[in-house]
């Protein structure tokens, strides 16, 4: 992965830049020592490492604004970072960029139960929001598997998902407002505690923009009353086709489960060996279907789903009888990544989304690729929304195997696009999938996206080298190619 060439003149000014930034963020707010910077040299995508020019840890919005304004004036690049759990290298530092760490913004500012929202600083963890409101019977719905560590600011940047997206939506559907700072230091607020806003939906645009448009300094999220109860079914199938058919049948009957997760045989075996959740080992696909809501509804729908699963040929079927058993059903799925980690020195987690009914085809092609590359793969699948997480097992100590794993991963993502899906469902493009963007978008599509970037950050100082395979100057992107003198088109009805 080639990152933009570092700007040597900026690197040569390191001490001077640090001195100015220390005036803005006094005390220990600027980190320069190699030893301390090691902590920051990678995010959740550990295959890539690069210490930043320096790390800056502001504590106030005013400081963020001043730091960014200074960087803007001086042409210094900035990489924003929350908890650093990105799986796509979104927070990967650059040698000539300051790393702007938002970890000190860790306060819940206000919980407004009457308006069912919480106003929090961006460094509050995803789970931290639920912890702050659960005593009153509320929770924050999106639940990415890193929720214990990932920050809500990072969730906004990546539009994080989780296992409950089909029913409760992604981050973007659960935000009411943000405060953010543009690269020139301008502080803006979009949305608030109300449900919609006039003008363009900049709150929606910011969500999932991977730190390329601005730095989020405050987030207002919707909180929901906890469902009265939840129960789960554990369903085993002799083929991924019949498991997929079951998912389609459940939805066709008008049922939208709170969660619907599928695992393939290698993932089932790994998970069972790790946590002994009681998963059947003689099935090809396992489905966890969770129904949540009022007691009467859950009891009714559990019976419906059980009936549908029999019709679809489930060979094993268990219904959780209590909360402990429900948690046990989930334990294997939630531990799937570390469970696969026990089988292999390294694994590479992919994140494509496909139309659900293409799953059998995709799994078949993936088995062929697995043979071709000589690397094993296990699959966990958010079956409700088509988000697929293949885990490619490899050993980085074997020369060339990381590259092979990456090529395998690329092939899987290209396949996702080929069958009508997308490169990334919830992990983001980052550096990891940057060079695959042309698989999904042509040059005009990408240039239009880059023009959005120009409206926010015309000098391309915020998180450069991420998301877009090629950088273009905004002046060049702004040029118009008008074909003068072309005749009006006679085919178009006009009157």
């Amino acid at each position: 992965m080639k990152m933009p060439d570092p700007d040597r003149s900026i690197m040569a000014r390191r001490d001077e830049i640090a001195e100015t930034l220390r005036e803005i963020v006094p005390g220990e707010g600027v980190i320069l020592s190699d030893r301390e910077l090691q902590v920051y040299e990678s995010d959740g995508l550990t295959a890539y490492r690069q210490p930043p020019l320096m790390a800056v840890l502001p504590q106030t919005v005013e400081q963020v604004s001043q730091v960014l304004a200074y960087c803007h004036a001086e042409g210094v690049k900035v990489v924003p970072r929350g908890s650093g759990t990105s799986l796509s290298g979104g927070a990967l530092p650059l040698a000539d960029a300051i790393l702007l760490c938002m970890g000190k913004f860790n306060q819940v500012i206000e919980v407004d139960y009457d308006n069912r929202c919480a106003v929090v600083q961006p460094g509050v963890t995803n789970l931290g929001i639920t912890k702050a409101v659960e005593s009153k019977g509320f929770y924050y719905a999106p639940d990415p598997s890193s929720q214990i560590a990932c920050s809500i600011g990072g969730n906004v940047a990546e539009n994080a998902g989780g296992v409950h997206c089909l029913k409760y939506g992604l981050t973007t559907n659960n935000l009411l407002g943000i405060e953010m700072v543009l690269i020139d230091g301008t502080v803006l607020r979009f949305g608030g505690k109300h449900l919609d806003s006039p003008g363009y939906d900049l709150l929606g645009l910011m969500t999932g923009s991977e730190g390329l448009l601005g730095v989020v300094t405050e987030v207002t999220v919707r909180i929901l009353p906890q469902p009265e109860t939840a129960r789960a079914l554990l369903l085993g199938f002799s083929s991924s086709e019949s498991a997929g058919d079951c998912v389609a049948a459940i939805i066709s009957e008008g049922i939208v489960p709170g969660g619907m997760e599928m695992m393939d045989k290698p993932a089932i075996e790994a998970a069972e060996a790790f946590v002994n959740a009681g998963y059947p080992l003689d099935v090809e696909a396992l489905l966890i279907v969770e129904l949540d809501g009022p007691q009467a509804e859950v009891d009714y729908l559990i019976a419906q789903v059980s009936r549908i699963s029999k019709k679809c040929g489930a060979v094993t079927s268990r219904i959780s009888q209590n909360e402990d058993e429900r948690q046990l059903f989930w334990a294997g799925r939630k531990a799937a990544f570390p469970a696969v980690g026990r089988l292999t020195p390294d694994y590479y987690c992919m994140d494509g989304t496909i139309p659900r009914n293409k799953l059998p085809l995709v799994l078949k092609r993936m088995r062929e690729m697995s043979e071709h590359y000589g690397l094993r793969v296990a699959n966990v699948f958010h079956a409700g929304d088509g988000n697929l997480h293949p885990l490619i097992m490899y050993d980085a100590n074997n020369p060339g195997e990381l590259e092979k794993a990456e090529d395998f991963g690329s092939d899987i993502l290209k396949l996702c696009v080929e069958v009508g899906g997308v490169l990334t469902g919830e992990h983001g493009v980052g550096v990891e999938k940057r060079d695959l963007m042309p698989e999904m978008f042509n040059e005009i599509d990408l240039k239009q996206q880059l023009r959005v970037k120009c409206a926010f950050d015309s000098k391309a100082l915020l998180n450069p080298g991420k998301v877009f395979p090629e950088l273009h100057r905004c002046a060049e992107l702004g040029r118009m190619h008008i074909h003068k003198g072309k005749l009006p088109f006679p085919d178009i009805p006009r009157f």
Partner: protein
Amino acid sequence: MSHIKPENAAQLEEAIQWVLSQEETMEIIGSGSKRKLGRSVKADHQLDVSALTGITLYEPEELVLSARAGTSLMEIQEELAKHNQYMAFEPMDYGPLLKGKADAGTIGGMIACNLSGPRRLKAGAARDHFLGFSGVSGRGETFKSGGRVVKNVTGYDLMKLMAGSYGTLAVMSDITIKVLPAPPEEKSYVLYELSDEEANRAMSVALNSSCEVSSAAHIPQIISNKLTQEAEERAMTLFRLEGHGPSIAYRVDKLASILVDFGQGSLVADPESRSLWQKLRDAEVLSKSEERSIWRISLPPAQGNAFMGCLKFNEQAEYYYDWAGGLIWLSLTGDHNASLLRDKLKSVGGHATLVRSAIGVEDAENPQQPLEPGEHALMKRIKDNFDPKAILNPGRLYADL
């Protein structure tokens, strides 16, 4: 002025390139059902997308539907109903309110105006169900964004920019949305004769419970008979419960016990319940009088009645609350209320939109609430990057957007 009506996406691109080359401007229309909403457009040409029609993909078990931008919502809704599915965000029909035909809207207009309805509390707006599109920018270039799957973070979410942009950034030719299974049943639990303040509290209590109330509205006494056609005028507070029969029955009991301090309610079943929410959705309960202007005020739900309380209106003010207090539909005589409403909103947050001016009053300068300068400047830069020559719906949102 010419009226250009492309019949396919290629012609749409040609048409926009032609207008661009002429250094002229165009108004974008589908069925024209929301033409009177917002600022009017003065343009050299009219670009009519109503010939771009047809559902191009519908896979019920995948919960996805694609259609060309000019496809009528009626057609889409009928097709969805065949498979017991719907657009959960319940797009309102502006037709009746704007003195046009009912049920005339297109999917393109629905997205461009980011429509929603009473179920917004639970299901969001069009923006939340908009998965992908293809369209032509003001640069005359066809581009696409998004896809046909719900979980997608590949590149910027340009769908959010298009939803609510009123055709000022690009003209969409193809649209893909998420659809959902329609709830098999609905019932409404109704409390009577609550004051605005009591109703606002009752709606908060209901929404904060696990009863999964999908809509909550309060209709003050003076307009209640327009909703029910009953002779007796009494304030009504409605709570919508949707889903499978056993679940609704259970939740009705639970809701009644949670709200017992607010009195004994009654239950309205289908099809009356659906009809009540449709009238509330389309603001049909407000006066049709042409001397009135109609406002749509979006604010934090729990502040709804306090906001109304601090406005000293004449007795002819008609209003009701949707979104558990977070949306106020307000009908007033005369048009000179913008600064009053917007000043009062400053302390609670939110915005006021002039949906319809009283007849004889000139077009308001800002039907949509003016933005903070920094935010406005950023939106202008976005507009300039999509439509540098301002050829698409110039001035539709604000004077320069």
